[in-house]
Structure formats: C-alpha cells, structure tokens
C-alpha cells in the first residue's frame, strides 16, 4: 500500500461569544482528563499508514501509527478517549490490530511533535473502524 503524509487546513468555526458565557470563551476546551491546548484544532492532518500498536488503556487509548514521510516511516501517537468512551462508540480492544492499514485524521500537536488528537479513522478500504462487527 502506498503511504502518504499530508497536512490540510480545515474550516475553523468562527468563535462567537454568547451573552452569559464570558467565563468560558477565554478558557481553552478541556478533555475529560487534560486541557486541549496542546492540540491545534484549526488544523487537521491525515495520516495514511499502518498500525504499530493499539493501547486500550486509561485515561486514554492510543493508536501508534507508522506513516510514511519523505524520509521513511514515522511513528505518530494518536490520542483517543478512554476505553469506556470508545466502547460506547462501538470500539473494542480488538477493533484495531497491529499491521492494519489505517487512514486517521488528527488535530496535530502545536509544538510539531509527532502526535495528535484523534478525529476519525478508517481502514485502508475506507470502512470506518467502529462500524466493523466484532
């Protein structure tokens, strides 16, 4: 499978201030466990590659993706929700296997390190992972 690595901008929703919500607009979103300030949510990166490891762990699940950069395979750490959250979304510990072809969209780290926040994922043939019967 040809692997590619690309970076694309996404439409950023305009930041509107609701009357009565002044307390929240100045404070960055918080994930269930930590602030989301480390991720650039105005940018999406599509990683195409293979799964090196799927960590079904608390407080977050992680997919380690080997995506091909210009210089060869590069490992990315993709943060997801907790096992409880993933389970509710149809995921299970064996939904993703080592060696699976994967296309995963993430919001990347602001500091340029090879990591990001999970947005969506599909198999090499475009099938969403969560819709695959176990």
């Amino acid at each position: 499978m040809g692997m590619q690595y690309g970076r694309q901008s996404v439409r950023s929703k305009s930041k509107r201030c609701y009357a009565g919500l002044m307390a929240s607009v100045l404070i960055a979103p918080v994930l269930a466990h930590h602030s989301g300030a480390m991720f650039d949510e105005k940018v999406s990166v599509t990683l195409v590659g293979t799964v090196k490891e799927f960590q079904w762990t608390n407080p977050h699940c992680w997919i380690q993706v080997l995506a091909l950069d210009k210089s060869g395979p590069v490992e990315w750490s993709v943060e997801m929700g907790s096992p409880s959250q993933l389970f509710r979304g149809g995921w299970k510990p064996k939904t993703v296997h080592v060696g699976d072809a994967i296309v995963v969209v993430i919001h990347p780290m602001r500091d340029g390190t090879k990591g990001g926040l999970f947005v969506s994922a599909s198999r090499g043939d475009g099938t969403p992972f969560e819709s695959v019967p176990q």
Partner: protein
Amino acid sequence: MRNSSLVVLILVLTSPAGLATEAASGDSARISQFARLPNWSGLWVSAAWSLGTSGRPAGGEEELKAKLQLIRPPPYNAQWAAKYEAALQDKAALAARTATFKVCTRSFPALMEAPQQFQVATLPEETLLIFENGQVRHVYTDGRSHPAGDDLWPTPLGDSVGHWEGQTLIIDTVARSASESLAPRARVALLSEDAHFTERLRKVDANTLEDEMRIDDPTALASPWIFTLRFRRVTEMNRMISTNCVENDRVQVIDGKMVITNP
C-alpha cells in the same frame, strides 16, 4: 412472680432464638424502608455531554458550552464580580494555567455536570452516587445532621445529608472547599466556604433524572443561584467500566507545557 417473668423475658430476648427474632424484625423494617425507595438503577450521565471516540464533545465545543450550567457567570455580589472579571482579564495567567491543566477528579458541584457515568444506590441509610472515575458522593439519609464544630472541615465534595420527600431526594451540602473552581471550564469561578447547596434529585421519566440545584452563598452571591441539571440513562453499555488517570498517562507536563511521552 414479676421478677420471674422479667428473667424469662430477658432469657428469651438474649437467647440465640430471641436475638434472631429481633434481628428478623430489624431486617423486616429495613426491607419495608427499601420498598419505599425509588429505583434509580442503571447507568446515568450528564445530558449535556455526548463524547465521541476522540474523547471530545461529539457536537463540538460550542454545543457543549450552550448546555453546561456551571460555566455561566454566577450571580456574584459587586465585590466578587469584580474579582471574577479581573481573573477573566488576566489572560496571561489563564493561558499559563490552561497550558498545563490536567484534571482527574472533580469537586462538587462540577462532578454533577461531568462527562463521567454514574450509578445511584438508594439505601435506607444513605444514597450513593458512584462515578466511573472512582469518586463517590455519600448522602446520608439516616436523620443525622452535618458534623458540628471541629468534626467538619472543607473538602472538594463537601458534606451531604439528605431526606426523602416522596420520590424526591433532598440533598443538603456544606463545607465545600473554597479553593475549588466551579468547573474545569469555569476555572476562575469560585464560591466561598459559606456556600450552601440544596438539591432536589428525582426521576422525571424512565430515562431521565433531574437535579434542581440552589446555591446560597451570602459571602459571594447577591442572590441564590438556581439551575437544573439533567441526566440521561446510558443505553450504549450495561455495566460500569471504571476509569483512572494512572494506568497509562502519557500526557505529562514538562517545562511548563504538556507533551506526549513515548509509549
């Protein structure tokens, strides 16, 4: 003769058979109490939250904020409103705190508007709200009062006692730590140690719990703050799967910023 009867009565009551009878009577009374309590079994979660696979709000941040109650400005008096506005304007402090902000447990009342699932166990002596992150609210309904004097000190969840009015649980909470912000998304919003919380928790239909909350704080608020929290029955799963922050916490704060550590 009277003394003989008394001796016989004592012997009967203190004999194994007598004690068993007394215990059975106590169990019977407790079973009757149980029967009068509402059945709130199942899994519940704040209706404001719908988390996606990413662990982020499925409908987006703005949709979530429109539903959350605790991020709204409290009805502060002039002195506390000034402190609140000043904290909001200190963008450098906010940014620095946001850059390293991690949360594992929540204080009250934030816990009641958190994305964590919970179960409600209604016992005659207390009602337990058991959250998936391991936190538990104990609401004692055995007629006790809040501890007095030095037996009571501020804690993140405060001290809760309650009583039943029909099928509605009235919860009275005091002694909440004043240093705790109201919610992770309202980190500059505080209350004083005088804050007094009154909740009316009830089941409004088979799939909905409702918590009408009133906050009185004569030190910080100009008027009582009243709002309603709602919880939906979780139907996507049928058992509690506990969460924790220590098993594989790869997001660490290093040199003043959060980084992802290697697996």
